[in-house]
Structures are given as structure tokens and as C-alpha cells.
């Protein structure tokens, strides 16, 4: 590392309480320049609350939030100059065409930008009125306006919802290009595979509290996914008590294991049987989270 990276976002004991609704409580995290930070959590966990605080649409009850070293409230306009936002619940000016919307926002940001090129790459027709567009095409308008001025920070809330797989690929390219330019991405999603694909680090928020922040690499390395094919189905309790075993699924003679830590104990247990094939790989984020939160039930509201 050449120099310590600049913090683009820093939240300290960030709290937002609503009357009856659940907000967020004592959330601490920081996002460094150039990284993609995945913000994960079930619906209603507080993802959108955090994002709306970043945009200064709502105000913290307590705690501190700074972006680019600036105060999220006092310096909001200066912050928003360097920020591109794709809302999760995207509402656009229905009577405008895509081109008019990009034109309007281009004027407000003082930069014409790359909106038209991005629209072209996404195969979006800018001449049509937004009210005539399908959900996927509206999402493309949202992406184009978020990326058009090449912002230093992209705040993306469920960005690929409604996009077909081909367009998703283009979107991933756009994100990759943004980070290559030195841009930072705050990505909120409940789709684990997407976060795994894009993010360097993830934070998991549940019931308004940030449970864990770690790199995707670390999280995946902590867990191993083993699939063994036996000559004959082993007895159901054959692997009970094996150290580190988080989950066992048996499907006839094929057994899948999710394992935390070393694989040694499992290998020795497997060796007692006739194993025809063995597949060992890093776990998906999905496995990690299922293993970590298995059996836990959210508090009843």
C-alpha cells in the first residue's frame, strides 16, 4: 500500500429512531476510497435508513456521519456534488423522457457527463417518456443518472432489481470502471450472490444493528463447502460430533457439508467410508450467512 487510504464514509454510533418504526442503532463503519462496500440485510433491517442518512434526506437522532471528511448535514450540498444515487424505490418524473431527465440533472450538477453513452451501453431508448418504460428500462434511467457525472461515491440501493442478466453484466462493468477511476461504491442489497460478485467488504445489518463487518475473502475463507459422493449412503448420524461442522445435507449417497475452520476432522471421519468423489471449495456468502444465523429468529415485532 502506497499510502493510507482516505475514508470516504465514516459512521460513528449512528442512530436514527422513528416513532414506532425500527431505525438503526449505534451503527459504526467506514468505507475507504476505491472500495465496494456491500451493505447486506433483510428487508426492513435498516439499509434504506442508512442510505437516506448518507443523502441527508433524513437526520440522525444521534451519532456522527461524515462523507469525504465533511459533515453529512452541514456540508450536504458539497457532498452531493460528488455523489451518485440510485434509490431502491426508484421514482422518476413520469412525463419526462429519459433524455430530458438526464438533461435536467446534468444542469443541476453542472456537468453534462456520460449519460448518453451509458444509456447506449445499457440499450436504453432515451426518447421515450418514462411513463411508457418497463421496470427494467426505468432502472436503466436510474443507473444512467447515477453514473453520468462520474461521481466519487456511488450509493446504490438494490441496483440490479428488474434488470435482465445481460444488462446486469453491463452494470457490473460500469461499477468496475467506476472503482478503477478511484470511485467508491456503497452497495445495498439482499442478493448475496450479487454482493459476493461485486463487494470487497460487507457489513451485515439486522434489526437496525450492524452485526459484522469483514472482507468477503475472510468471510468465505472461514467456511468450507465439502461435497462427498459415497459408494453407499452412510448412516444418518455418521458425522455427528465432527469438529467445526455447521451443516450436513444428505441426498442419497451424496452428502454436503458446511464447515468452519480446519477440514482435518471431517476428512478423518470421511475416511471410514468408501468415498467415490470429493469436492472441496470455499463457501458462498450464502453458506456463511446461513451457517452464522441458522436457527436465529428475528424478534417478533
Amino acid at each position, binding site marked *: 500500500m502506497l499510502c493510507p487510504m482516505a475514508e470516504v464514509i465514516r459512521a460513528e454510533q449512528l442512530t436514527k429512531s422513528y416513532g414506532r418504526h425500527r431505525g438503526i442503532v449505534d451503527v459504526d463503519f467506514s468505507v475507504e476510497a476505491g472500495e465496494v462496500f456491500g451493505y447486506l440485510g433483510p428487508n426492513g433491517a435498516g439499509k*434504506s435508513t442508512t442510505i*437516506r442518512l448518507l*443523502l*441527508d*434526506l*433524513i*437526520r440522525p437522532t444521534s451519532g456522527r456521519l461524515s462523507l469525504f471528511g465533511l459533515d453529512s448535514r452541514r456540508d*450536504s*450540498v*458539497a457532498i*452531493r*456534488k460528488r*455523489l*451518485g*444515487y440510485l*434509490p431502491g*424505490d*426508484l*421514482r*422518476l*418524473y413520469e*412525463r419526462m423522457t429519459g433524455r*430530458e431527465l438526464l*438533461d*435536467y*440533472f446534468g*444542469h*443541476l*450538477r*453542472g456537468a453534462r457527463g456520460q449519460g448518453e453513452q451509458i444509456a447506449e451501453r445499457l440499450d436504453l431508448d432515451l426518447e421515450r417518456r418514462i411513463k411508457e418504460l418497463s421496470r427494467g428500462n426505468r432502472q436503466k434511467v436510474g443507473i444512467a*443518472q447515477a453514473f453520468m457525472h462520474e461521481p466519487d461515491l456511488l450509493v446504490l440501493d438494490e441496483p440490479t432489481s428488474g434488470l435482465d442478466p445481460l444488462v446486469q453484466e453491463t452494470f457490473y462493468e460500469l461499477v468496475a470502471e467506476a472503482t478503477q477511476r478511484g470511485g467508491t461504491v456503497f452497495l445495498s442489497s439482499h442478493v448475496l450472490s450479487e454482493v459476493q460478485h461485486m463487494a470487497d467488504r460487507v457489513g451485515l445489518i439486522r434489526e437496525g444493528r450492524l452485526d459484522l463487518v469483514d472482507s468477503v475473502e475472510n468471510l468465505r475463507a472461514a467456511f468450507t463447502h465439502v461435497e462427498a459422493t459415497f459408494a453407499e449412503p452412510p448412516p444418518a448420524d455418521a458425522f455427528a460430533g465432527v469438529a467445526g461442522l455447521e451443516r450436513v445435507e444428505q441426498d442419497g449417497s451424496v452428502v454436503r457439508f458446511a464447515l468452519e475452520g480446519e477440514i482435518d476432522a471431517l476428512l478423518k471421519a470421511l475416511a471410514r467410508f468408501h468415498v467415490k468423489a470429493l469436492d472441496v471449495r470455499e463457501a458462498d456468502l450464502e453458506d456463511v450467512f446461513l451457517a452464522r444465523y441458522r436457527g436465529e429468529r428475528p424478534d417478533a415485532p
Partner: protein
Amino acid sequence: MLRNVALKSLRDIRRGFLWWSLGLAGFVALIVSVWPTVHSNPGLNKLAQDYPEALQAFLAFGGAVDYSSPAGYLGIELFSLMVPLLLLVAAIGTGASSIAGEEERGTLELLLANPVSRTKVVLEKTVALVAELVGLGFVLWLSLWIGALLANMDISAGHLAAATLSAVLLALAYGTIAVLLGAATGKRTVAIGLTAAAAVAAYLVNGLAPLVHGLEVPQKLSPFYHYAVGDPLRNGFSFTHMAVLVAIAVVATALAPWFFSRRDVAT
């Protein structure tokens, strides 16, 4: 038209503006075209002057009920009720939609993600409201002036302008109150309802004051009093009373950003 929030907001109301203009001009044409008949029928004036005092107070605009002069006729038929009513409906509609309309449609979230302060957004929306009302005022004045020429009405363009400007300023006062309430609550129906209720109350207070003891002081607080009391169709511009209406608009416009900047924007 997409250079800033004010121009974009004007662009949004351009179709509505066209219809309001046609409506106002058509209504003026209708009223003016009846003038020759009314003028040649002095009995109508006698009848009107025998009306109960309560009715006269609501009928007349500024001075006494008088069907014999163009100023009296236009006051009764247009400026005592219909012109302020139409302009107020337009102003309160636009004002309430300024912030609360965008907030309810959900577009405010994306607009405020741009580097524009909330103060700037609400002030530019107010500029659009002012422009709309000035435009409607111009259409109203132009139709009155042309109509008066065609119908041989003996009334000056200046006095027509004075009455029109009073009406525009009255509408602006309530329009900016609607902006303020919309900016403070984020709810369009609240803004429309409260502003309309305040306008009706102020209208009644002003109309009933000559008949009811104890309303003399509240009457002075009614914007409708300052709208009409100078009798602009007969006397021309009354800058003191216009200044009161402007002051209401200025105070409402100054308060709107203060409230808007201090609250959470709804999802």
C-alpha cells in the same frame, strides 16, 4: 426549460397554465359581453341597491354595489368573488404541489440527491409560482382591457391593472402559504385543506365585518380586506394594502425553507 428547478417547475405547469388562461379569458369575455345589456337597464341597479346590507357587503368589491358604472359592474361580477376564487385555486394547487406534490410522488428523493439545497429548491419553486400568477394576471388584464375596449366600457387600463395586481397578490399570499404548509408537512392534502380553510375564513370575516360587532379588528387581518378595501377599479393602485399582501407572501416564503430544511423527507 430544464436549466434549473424554477424553469423545470414552470415547464410542469405549462399545460395547466394554458387551460387556466383560456378559462379566465373566456370568463372575462362572457361577463364583458353582458355589460351593454346591464348598462341599458337602470332598473337592475335600483334592485341591487335594495338588497339587504349583508348581501351587498359580499357582492361589492371595495366600494358600494353599483351596476351603473363599468368599475362597479366588473367589481361585482368578477373581482368580488370569481377572479380571486379562480386565482386562489390555481395558486393553492401549485403551491401545495411545489414540495409536497413531489414528495408524495417520490421524485423529491431523487431531486434532493442532486447538489441543490432544500432552501434553493423551495425558493425556486416559489419563483415558479410567482411567474405562473404573474402570467395569469397578465392574461386576465389583457382580456379585461381588450374586452373593455370592445364593449365600450369607460375604465382605464391602469385601474384594470390595479385590480388585477391586487388579485394576483392575494393569490400569491395564499399560494406561498400553501408552499409553506406543503414544505413543512410534506402532505399535499394538508396544505390544500388548511390554506383553503384559512382563505374561506378570511373571506367571511371580511364580508361579515360590516354587519357583526367585534369583527372590525379581525377584518384588518384578513388578506381579503386589503385586497378590496382600496377599491382599485375606481381608485387605481393602493400600495399600502398591496404591501400587506406582499408582506404575507414574503413571511411565508421566508419560513418555508426554515421548516423544510429541518425535517425528514418522507420515503
